[in-house]
């Protein structure tokens, strides 16, 4: 009888362990990232704004090289692991540098990329405004303008020729 009880205890302990182990395994399995659950569109939505570090000026979503295909798989894997877009982007920057981003990140010298064009355009506007202002000033008095009789005959002849040939 005692032996039978011991046996029952053993079975019970085994069952408890089995249930716990099975549960742990199920939980672990449920947490294993499954890249197949990620769609191509999810991958491309991120890849579109990343640039292939090897090919010049080709976004990652349309680059046909093997290397880019692997990088797209990396995005898929990271998405499956629960990374968000910013984390994935940062991962690629850490790996390959700022050049993988579609635009220079606004820090350090990169600020020049964003500041110079508007400053140049504003300078253009300022020049234009100054020009308009100077044009709006009244013209010099007629007396200061050269009179027709001050024009040399050669110049007059040339003007006439020019007008004739227009």
């Amino acid at each position: 009888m005692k032996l039978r009880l011991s046996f029952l205890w053993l079975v019970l302990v085994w069952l408890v362990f089995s249930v716990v182990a099975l549960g742990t395994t199920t939980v672990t399995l449920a947490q294993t990232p499954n890249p197949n659950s990620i769609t191509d569109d999810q991958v491309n939505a991120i890849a579109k704004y990343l640039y292939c570090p090897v090919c010049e000026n080709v976004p990652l979503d349309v680059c046909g090289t093997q290397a880019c295909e692997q990088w797209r798989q990396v995005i898929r894997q990271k998405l499956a692991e629960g990374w968000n877009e910013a984390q994935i982007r940062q991962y690629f920057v850490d790996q390959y540098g700022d050049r993988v981003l579609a635009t220079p990140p606004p820090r350090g010298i990169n600020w020049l990329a964003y500041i110079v064009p508007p400053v140049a355009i504003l300078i253009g506007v300022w020049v234009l405004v100054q020009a308009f202002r100077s044009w709006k000033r009244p013209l010099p008095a007629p007396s200061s303008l050269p009179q027709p009789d001050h024009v040399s005959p050669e110049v007059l002849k040339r003007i006439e020729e020019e007008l004739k040939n227009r």
Partner: protein
Amino acid sequence: MITDLGYGALAITFFLTIYGVLAAIWGVRTRRPDWIDSARNAMLLTFPLLTLSCLSLIYLLVNGHYEVEYVASVTSTRMPLYLRITALWGGQAGSLLFWSWLMSAFASAVTLRNWQRDREFLPWVVVVSLVTLGFFLGLTLFVENPFDRLWLLPGGLAIKSFFAPEGAIPYFQSDGKGLNPLLRHPGMIIHPPMLYLGFVSFVIPFAFAIAALITNRTDDRWIQITRRWSLVAWLFLSLGLILGGRWAYDVLGWGGYWGWDPVEIAAFMPWLTGTAFLHSVMIQEKRGMLKHWNMILIILTYNLVIFGTFLTRSGVLSSVHAFAQSAIGPLFFIYIGASFVISLSLLLQRWQDLKSDLHMTSLLSREALFLLNNLLFLGILVICFWGVIFPLISEIITGQKVTVGPPFYERATAPLFAGLLLLMGIAPLAAWRHSTVQTLGKAVWKPTVVSLFVPLIGFLGGIRNWAALLGFWLAAFVACVTLYEYGRAVIARSRSRGESLPTAFWNLAGRNRRRYGGYIIHLGVVLMAIGIIGIELFQKETQGTLAQGEELSLGPYTMRFESLAVFDTADGRNVARAVVSIYKNGRFVGELYPRRDYYYESQQPMTIPGLRSTMEDDFYVLLVDWQPISSAGATFKVYQNPLVNWLWLGGFVFIIGTLVATWPESEKSPATVRARRRTPLAAKAS
């Protein structure tokens, strides 16, 4: 033998350019017209000589002379005849020779004009044209020689050189690498010559501008002479850009037409300054103003032409290190610097002489609005230029390269393009010299009210994108103004001359080609704007892997994967070709055949989309990947590109308009012209 002939002709032409430059300068210094005529004849002779050189290279390309390095690098025995001919501009060395040949054609054409009235320009036009030509010939002859042969050194190393190195034996290859697959598309066959034609023809107005500066001809004679040259240059450059866009759409396999790639921008920058120039010269012609500004614009355009060629040929875009190592890059850099400094020095020297007593009298006059238009074009240029060179600056300073991609350009240029569209609508209604808020408002309100119906209909139709609604309004506004202006003039002519409306329409375009050609160009821009708004703001895309018989949906479309075949072709390709059925709103509309070609010779793939085109949209299918063994599954990327065909239609109208504007005037009526000049448009409108 033929190699020697081509090389000899090239070398003689190079020395002829040096002779021409020296003879022209000597002729001016010694006041001896015979030297100037000799320089002119030297320039005329460059064309037949370079034709001989180009024909020699074509002969080598067509007949598979693979002992010539250039021939081996761009052709192969499997390539068809037409591709072997177009391989002339398929590589660096050949394209430089081709550039020089086109330049010589334009330079020679200039010599044939009647110089009676402006003989003082002749020597300087010869100097500028021949210096430009000589620079490119020098590059071709000494740095990138298309006639270089392959030699095998005693150590077994193959090198390229025109003359035999000591102890080397000729290296004959049985076949070449073949042309880059991307360059085998019909669009790419025509696109580079068009761009080059645009580039080289802008050299001529620049040459006249420099001649005017040197000779101190401060009138607008140089502009009158080069008006048609500038339009021709602009026509070719526009055509090159449009064809380039179509080529990208058909071949590059990313569903778009313009990727803000530095190579594209390199061609776009001279177009921007050229367009600003074409508007600005009208102010000089009509009002005698902005002489400095027009000089600056043509100097910029010329230097951007050279800069564009430099960007694409120097390797600088890959990295500054590639640029430093290339022989061609620093030479270009020095040439651009020298040309810019010399041109600006000449301009500064003549600054006082170019000053005009005439002043801008109204901020709403047409000339003021044209000047604003110039500011916007130059603003876009600054963004493009800075975007292209910033990665190089970053690399030089920090050692790290950055990418300046489409989001940068799109965000920065979109408001400026919108501003240009608005000006395109308002400026034709503003009068020269003087316009007030009242007169302009009176002319503008009718087209404004009519055009507002377009965004209203769009809003009621479900469009909630404010940028799209604004864009559609601007496009409608410009269209209304242009048609209103055209219609009013046609009716007026019909009434005054008793002509039927179609006859009046035809005669009107024939009488003032530049004005009415310009209106057609504006209509082309409107159509292009509609297409750009459609694809940029409403493009949809999806990607999926399908087994045979499975479907993928996008918008109203459903695509079913039917089959896939992989096979080799006689011209050295391995083709994977899918068959997909397309349904729109459940109705079968046709089959498409997207494919991926792999070129064995060059080991490069090319993605050719399957395309269903309507004016409403394009359904664009790319074969991204497939299972090679079973052929049962394949990955497709599909795009729905709304209104994109309006872009191509607009491009066509744009070119027609430019042709109309460029064509010589058929009917001249000075009295009428004078009368029209006295009557401001806005006043007429009232």
